[in-house]
């Protein structure tokens, strides 16, 4: 039994829904009680879909349990087939139905429907949403593409002379973080490079499209969390090589292009000479110097967390002080990435643990999911969302991919805009005493967020939040986060006064550093002297 306040991932059948809802001509019959229909709103509200997800729930009730829930399931499958006439179906159980063991696969195959019916076994008490999506996609691909597999050992036929190389884009789903725009961006990029996209799957693909996955020369795994098992199977069965580089950031996009070109047997040089992003120049331009070594904490699914951390460090000059993921399946990759940045990876799906770790690191910017957005809001730290779990705002009206060169432009803005502008920050430093620069008034980019909090005990004064991140957590939460300093030195009045001359948004850091310095040097009383000694010691 695990105590869970907020979850990063839904149950595995929600992953299956993301596959079915992304596809065309596919229907999902889910043996589940009525409450599980809540999952529809993820798609219709958060993603603003204009159609109901193609899911039929049996919505069995307690009174059905003694009777025949199996018959209920069969009639749901039959009715769904009659009503929706899909090209293929997936069938399975949610957590409750798993316990009553009705065998959706066997029951539906007994109906002899004239379409492929693909049974799913998604162990709800072990696995989660992304795993469920990956497993579902893999099962669908096996069943639908399997019949056109070449004989084992047969080599792939050579591409006809003059034909453009082709690939499949694997992994985008419904409710995916920026999947819609990433697919557009990467399709355009490949087209300019001279590569044709055969099928995008699961998003937008019909069962008939899945059946022709084997026709492409190679596969591009856009989102390994979802596409890797299917792509591995396609590699084994059809001999299609995989491109696994995630094209997020300028460097990674260039590496991606190089890898694609190598596998496709084309020359990337002309393309790379021509295509670019504004990010490199924006990052080199003097205004960006204020970004130097700003402390950033990155958390998300493995793909995005790793890619964004690299981008933050190598392309923006930020300092990664924390890197983590809730995707345990990719713990190894995240640990390797964390090692590159000299930090220890945080592998956890415990929201409270993530919150405590972020507070501990005192980042100046948090790049995370909707969950971290809330944590950051509470700590008074700027934040941008870079990964699922998603909310309405993660489906912006404008075109905003994360991938490719345009994605790099978008990410520059996304990561930099939550921060104060360079000169704004300098002015606040210099004219701290200006009567209009009031403590406790959030800078414009943070305003609004905090003022909406209806929770009475939630600390809304930005000053306090910024002044002591740990204390803010304790106040907001009654959260026994351990204060890092074991013994805290006392401040003289003069030192306190001097401290208050430091702008509120860095004051917390100054206080912490000074106390840390005092502690390490066994100084019991902090004077103005100590304050400046500490400043010299930590100076950046």
């Amino acid at each position, binding site marked *: 039994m695990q105590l869970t306040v907020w979850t990063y991932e839904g149950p595995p059948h929600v992953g299956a829904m993301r596959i079915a809802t992304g596809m065309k001509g596919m229907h999902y019959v889910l043996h589940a009680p*009525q*409450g599980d229909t809540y999952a529809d709103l*993820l798609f219709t*509200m958060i993603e603003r879909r*204009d159609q109901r997800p193609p899911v039929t729930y049996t919505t069995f009730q307690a009174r059905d349990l003694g009777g025949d829930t199996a018959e209920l399931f069969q009639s749901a499958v039959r009715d769904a087939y009659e009503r929706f006439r899909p090209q293929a179906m997936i069938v399975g159980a*949610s957590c409750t139905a798993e*316990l009553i063991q009705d065998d959706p696969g066997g029951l539906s195959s007994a109906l002899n429907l004239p379409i492929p019916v693909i049974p799913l076994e998604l162990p709800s008490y072990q696995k989660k949403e992304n795993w469920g999506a990956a497993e579902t996609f893999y099962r669908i691909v096996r069943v639908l593409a399997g019949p056109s597999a070449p004989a084992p050992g047969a080599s792939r036929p050579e591409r006809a002379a003059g034909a453009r190389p082709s690939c499949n884009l694997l992994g985008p789903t419904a409710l995916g973080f920026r999947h819609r725009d990433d697919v557009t961006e990467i399709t355009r990029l490949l087209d300019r490079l001279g590569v044709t996209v055969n099928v995008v799957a699961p998003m937008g693909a019909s069962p008939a499209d899945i059946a022709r996955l084997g026709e492409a020369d190679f596969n591009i795994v856009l989102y390994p969390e979802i596409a890797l098992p299917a792509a591995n199977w396609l590699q084994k069965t059809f001999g299609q090589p995989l491109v696994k580089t995630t094209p997020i950031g300028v460097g990674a996009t260039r590496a991606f292009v190089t890898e694609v070109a190598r596998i496709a047997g084309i020359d990337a040089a002309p393309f790379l000479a021509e295509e670019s992003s504004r990010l490199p120049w924006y990052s080199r331009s003097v205004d960006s110097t204020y970004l130097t070594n700003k402390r950033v904490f990155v958390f998300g699914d493995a793909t995005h967390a790793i890619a964004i951390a690299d981008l933050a460090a190598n392309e923006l000059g930020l300092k990664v002080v924390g890197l983590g993921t809730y995707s345990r399946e990719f713990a190894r990759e995240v640990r390797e990435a964390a090692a590159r940045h000299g930090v220890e990876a945080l592998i956890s799906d415990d929201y409270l643990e993530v919150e405590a770790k972020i507070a501990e690191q005192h980042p100046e910017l948090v790049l995370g999911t*909707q969950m971290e957005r809330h944590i950051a809001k509470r700590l008074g730290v700027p934040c941008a969302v870079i990964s699922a779990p998603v909310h309405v705002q993660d489906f912006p009206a404008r075109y905003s991919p994360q991938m490719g060169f345009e994605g790099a432009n978008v990410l520059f803005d996304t990561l930099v805009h939550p921060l104060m502008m360079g000169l704004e920050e300098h002015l606040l430093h210099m004219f701290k005493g200006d009567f209009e620069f009031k403590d406790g008034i959030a800078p414009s980019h943070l305003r609004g967020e905090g003022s909406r909090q209806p929770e009475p005990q*939630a600390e809304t004064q930005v000053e306090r939040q910024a002044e002591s991140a740990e204390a803010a957590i304790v106040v907001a939460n009654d959260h026994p986060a351990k204060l890092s300093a074991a013994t805290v030195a006392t401040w003289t009045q003069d030192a306190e006064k001097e401290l208050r001359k430091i702008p509120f948004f860095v004051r917390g850091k100054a206080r912490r550093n000074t106390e840390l310095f005092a502690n390490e040097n066994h100084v019991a009383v902090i004077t103005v002297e100590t304050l400046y000694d500490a400043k010299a010691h930590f100076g950046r």
Partner: protein
Amino acid sequence: MNAVPPPATLKSAMPADSQLDVLSCTTAAPAAGPAIIQSERGQRAVFCGLTGIVWLHRKIQDAFFLVVGSRTCAHLIQSAAGVMIFAEPRFATAIIDERDLAGIADINDELDRVVNRLIERRPDLKLLFLVGSCPSEVIKIDLSRAALRLSRDLMPNVRVLAYSGSGIETTFTQGEDACLASLVPGLAAETAAAPKSLMVVGALADAVEDQFRRLFADMGIAHVSFLPARHAADMPSIGPNTRYLLAQPFLTDTARALEERGAVRLCAPFPLGAEGTTEWLAAAAAEFGVAPDRFEAVTDAPRQRAERSVARYHERLSTKRIFFFPDSQLEVPMARFLSRELGMQLVEVGTPYLHRQHLAGELAMLPSSTLIVEGQDVDQQLDRCRAAKPDLVVCGLGLANPLEAEGIATKWSIELVFTPVQGYEQAGDLAELFARPFVRKQLLSPMLEDASCS
């Protein structure tokens, strides 16, 4: 000025001669009146009772709701709460895992461990609800026993109660019913010597509760309490002299539990709209012997205010055709309000469950041959809805955008549950909620309708 026709039943509900009505509807469910009631079975598109936690944990300020369930349950509450993380919420899920199912871990030990960790983290808690789910029920975890055991260990600091919010037993608002019912056996007992008191039952917004408190005080009803109270220690006491008024139409089990403790229900429509609120207050006034002129004096001004603010929307809403998908069980009182005070036409009133006795007053006030559909088969209902082409559809979040995309205006029913709508001062707000889709449609350029979505 007053566009609302004087409600016909208002007179009969006035204190002077309403005693008979009150009696008749407490003794037996009257024939359902002129409405046509059909029931339907099939796929439902309604939340389960766990959803109630989203508002109940705000209402009872020192209570914590611990769902014993699966990742699905945790995800449901989180999605229904809209990932709107205020502070650390006072609800959580103890997610059952493989080890629990395989019997490797003893479920009761596990539960004790989780609860103790929780209490350590939140020493401010006074009341802990163990909330059952489909999985906990199917594998037969006895949460009532667990609650007794934990209560014994944790009292007097924390009382532990159990109820089920499972989707196999409860829909949406029935979770609140189950929660409140679990509170009733623990209410302090009053003797037959206690003065007659009034208990208002059903979670209301604090502001609404305060308004009602003032109205009852002005009428001279001295002993008034609310269930649930805002704090665990303030839960009302109960006895044979307790008279209770339901503020919500979905409190079947709570009502039964209250009656087992000797309380007597006052029959009334629900306090939605000017008319509903007046009748609801009148039922209490009659029972507590409030003189008619005193009742008039107290309710006259706010009632007129309510009528005026509702009338503002009459022109926009009257003759508009409305179709309800089943959701909160508030559908029947809403339909009554919309048809009588705003002149809307009821195409179909779907409701997940119809308590004929509690809704007797409401049913009698509906226009004749109103179609009420109890239960749901969502695909069939969508077919009927499309064929009927109503002007407005009240439905759950899963259906709203798809219907809008088909050109059918909607109002999400969950908003009706999360917004303070009861009482005189909120009657106008309630009308406005239904008018807003029309206002919006008028504001938006017609060009937007031709442009296809996503």
